């Protein structure tokens, strides 16, 4: 046998080992590539422990090359390959490289053909997300699956939505400033939970989150989206004056939260950017509060300058106020 034949049979054996695990195990918790420099003779690179699947890193190049070529072959043939092969190849390719869009799209076809159930595919996405949490293709695929599900089964229930929201938090926890995860969360709220109760609940969840992830501005960005949404929901459901009043109290509470966090954490730009957002929102509902707000911000700045805290950020804040709100602190 020459080398390439050997490589092929090695790849086939690994695929078989993986197939056995995927067929038997319905509750895979994790997949990861485990760095191992050299292969041990006659030992399979597939590790399976406690519902977790690992692949020794030396085997990746053989497995991936084989699967990729086989996959391209199935694409180029006019005659369709059988679904089982496509499922297996795309599954393996995506485990290693979840950025491969063509593979994701082939899986969509398998779902349309009802070879894969939507629920199983959602579980598979979640498994991949644990290893690569910032992966747009995965979130887009998920979005597509849910839209498919809604088409056939109707509006998802609260349990399902909560599950999706929790999944976003997990992805955001695993990868800092995970904008894709927060965008997905925004989509879930906008599409399936666009009401005051849900948004107020989101305020509480996101508060706990930013307290623990103080420099993650993607999380703050999401919070700002929720705040603005609550503002417009108030306007939709209440009398204008009352709506403004309620919105203002949300913003005032937000300012208190920022001040509390500033006391604990030094030099966090995210807090200052969030502060700018709150101040501009407050001004947008009631321009006549300009003087009052100005005085409050002036007191804050003077206090921080006196104790010499967050010097650079305070200077930037002063410049921003000067430029965009025409406030002078001299």
């Amino acid at each position, binding site marked *: 046998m020459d080398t390439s034949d050997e490589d092929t049979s090695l790849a086939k054996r690994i695929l078989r080992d993986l197939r056995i695990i995927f067929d038997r195990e319905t509750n895979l918790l994790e997949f990861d590539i485990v760095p191992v*420099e050299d292969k041990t003779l006659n030992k399979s690179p597939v590790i399976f422990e406690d519902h977790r699947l690992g692949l020794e890193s030396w085997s*990746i190049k053989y497995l991936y090359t084989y699967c990729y070529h086989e996959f391209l072959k199935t694409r180029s043939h006019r005659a369709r390959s059988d679904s089982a092969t496509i499922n297996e190849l795309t599954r393996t390719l995506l485990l290693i490289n979840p950025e491969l869009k063509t593979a994701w799209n082939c899986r969509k076809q398998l779902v349309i053909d009802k070879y894969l159930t939507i629920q199983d595919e959602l579980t598979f996405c979640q498994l991949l997300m644990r*290893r690569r949490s910032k992966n747009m293709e995965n979130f887009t695929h998920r979005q597509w699956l849910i839209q498919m599900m809604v088409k056939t089964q109707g509006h998802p229930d609260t349990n399902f939505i909560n599950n999706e929201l929790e999944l976003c938090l997990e992805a955001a926890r*695993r990868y800092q400033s995970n904008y894709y995860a927060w965008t997905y969360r925004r989509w879930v709220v906008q599409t399936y939970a666009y009401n005051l109760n849900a948004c107020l609940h989101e305020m509480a969840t996101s508060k706990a989150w930013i*307290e*623990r992830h103080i420099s993650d501005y993607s999380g703050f960005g999401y919070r700002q989206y929720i705040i603005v949404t609550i503002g417009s929901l108030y306007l939709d459901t209440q009398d204008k004056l009352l709506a403004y009043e309620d919105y203002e109290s949300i913003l005032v509470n937000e300012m208190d939260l920022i001040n509390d966090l500033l006391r*604990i*954490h*030094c030099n966090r730009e995210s807090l200052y950017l969030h502060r700018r957002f709150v101040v501009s929102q407050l001004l947008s509902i009631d321009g006549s509060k300009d003087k009052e707000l100005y005085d409050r911000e002036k007191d804050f700045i003077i206090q921080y300058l006196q104790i010499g805290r967050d010097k650079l950020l305070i200077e930037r804040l002063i410049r921003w106020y000067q430029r965009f709100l025409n406030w002078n602190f001299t």
Partner: protein
Amino acid sequence: MVKLYFVAVIYKHDRGSTILKSCADLTSFGYFQKKSVGEFMKFTSKMIVERSERASRSSIKEQEYLCHAYVRADNLASVIISDQDYPNRVAHTLLSKILEDFSVAIPSQRWASAAEDSVTFNALDIYLVKYQNPQEADAMTKLQRDLDETKIILHETISSLLQRGEKLDDLVAKSDDLSAQSKVFFKTARKTNQCCQYYP
């Protein structure tokens, strides 16, 4: 994330150091990485103590982690490994508090002779859980006043702690504290310049 990963009480010998008690919260790491990450935290904290002067405080940045160390004049040291969001001031106050409590709980004649990671000091596990939330620090205001932040030595990387001619890669290769698996792990992470993430 505002997160404490690891705390340890370490004894600094003239050559080398011994971990008296350590505990770690590695829930945020993957299943296959946990063991190596744990070993590295121990390895790193011992290395920092060995290379720090007596009666000194330091904070060392390494990728997305921060290591804080406090070595007392009586050779007792404490180390915290946190992420970059965890407030420095709180970490250093906690370091002092840990050593104060440890000195009270464990008689000093046992420190030098204790075997690696063998001392029972459950307060440390409790601290690791409790101080995940830095707001707990409010209870320590008295200590905070004693802490002079300007005396903390700051290092931009672990490598800047090393003596001339020393290399981190060599130290890792020579270490007895690290398993073969962890050494490969380290090499891979170095190559991709990514901690605990592997890109094929």
